């Protein structure tokens, strides 16, 4: 009688174990993650008008004017060799000089760069070796100067294009 009970108990336990084993199931999914190359650049607006109004008697170079009221921000995930270039829509006439200085905390600023003759085919590097990541609110400084011998310049609109590229 005792032996029969033990046998019965073992049989019941086996059924439970087998039942549990057949209750387990699973499913799999393949998830593909992709991050494309991202380049983003923006500026905070347009600088104020730059008007040369004075000079020094006896000196051809008139007093230059500067503007540092705007900033730029960039984001890129391409690599550490990205650069920022700048160019004008058309070159300035001889005797007028427009210089640009772009601050940078993730790259190497080229310092003050003359962009007077930089057009779409000859953009100037203004920041190089930009590291992957974001750089926000960096100062843009323009300096405009003129020679007296170049004469007056009526109000002239120039477009500066900044390009973030590899």
């Amino acid at each position, binding site marked *: 009688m005792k032996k029969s009970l033990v046998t019965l108990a073992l049989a019941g336990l086996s059924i439970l174990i087998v039942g549990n084993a057949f209750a387990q199931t699973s499913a799999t999914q393949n998830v593909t993650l992709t991050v494309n190359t991202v380049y983003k650049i923006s500026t905070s607006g347009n600088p104020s008008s730059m008007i040369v109004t004075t000079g020094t008697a006896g000196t051809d170079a008139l007093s230059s004017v500067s503007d540092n009221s705007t900033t730029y921000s960039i984001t890129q995930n391409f690599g550490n060799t990205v650069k920022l270039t700048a160019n004008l829509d058309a070159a300035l006439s001889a005797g007028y000089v427009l210089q640009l200085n772009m601050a940078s905390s993730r790259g190497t600023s080229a310092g003050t760069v003359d962009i007077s003759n930089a057009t779409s085919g000859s953009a100037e590097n203004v920041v190089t070796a930009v590291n992957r990541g974001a750089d926000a609110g960096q100062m843009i400084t323009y300096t405009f100067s003129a020679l007296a011998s170049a004469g007056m310049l009526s109000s002239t609109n120039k477009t500066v*294009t900044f390009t973030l590229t590899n």
Partner: protein
Amino acid sequence: MKLRRITGTDSLQPPNETTGGAMKTQILYIARKTTKTLVAVLTMAAGLYAQGSSTQQSLILRVMELNKIGLIGGSLKLTIDKLHAELFAPAPVVNANTTLLWTSNGENKKITVASNNNNSRYALRVAPQEMSPGAGVAAPEVSFSDNKNHDFIVGVNRSAGKCVIKFSAAADVAKGIGSDTHVVTFTITSS
């Protein structure tokens, strides 16, 4: 031997023939395939290197008309205290220690000179010397007899220049001793 032009619908499989015509076709086939490969490579390269993002700023640049004039050298004193050896008259004195400087980005400008003393006892004359080349044309010497503006330098066009101002003072014996004071004003203005 007849050459056949490969068209866009031709197969890109290499021909099997080995005749002269077939060889030309083979060359065309290779050229076509090479071109396609190049286009593909260039497209990939463009994809790699032309990536970027741009933004623009608009600038307004302007240079106003400006005319600047200045002097190096302060007040000066001319003292007639010698006699001319042959004429037995007071010898004129000259002072050329003052420099006039100017800058103008305008055209057809001139520099005039005037004295506030229109009733001086002794003669005072003024003339430009050692003009900067191309910065203007020296006008004839001015002898002050009124307080009007007289041309000193003309033909100033978009230039910066300088000259030495030569002051000459002369007196007749009949004028006796005494002194005159002149405030001499140089003005850059339109011609």
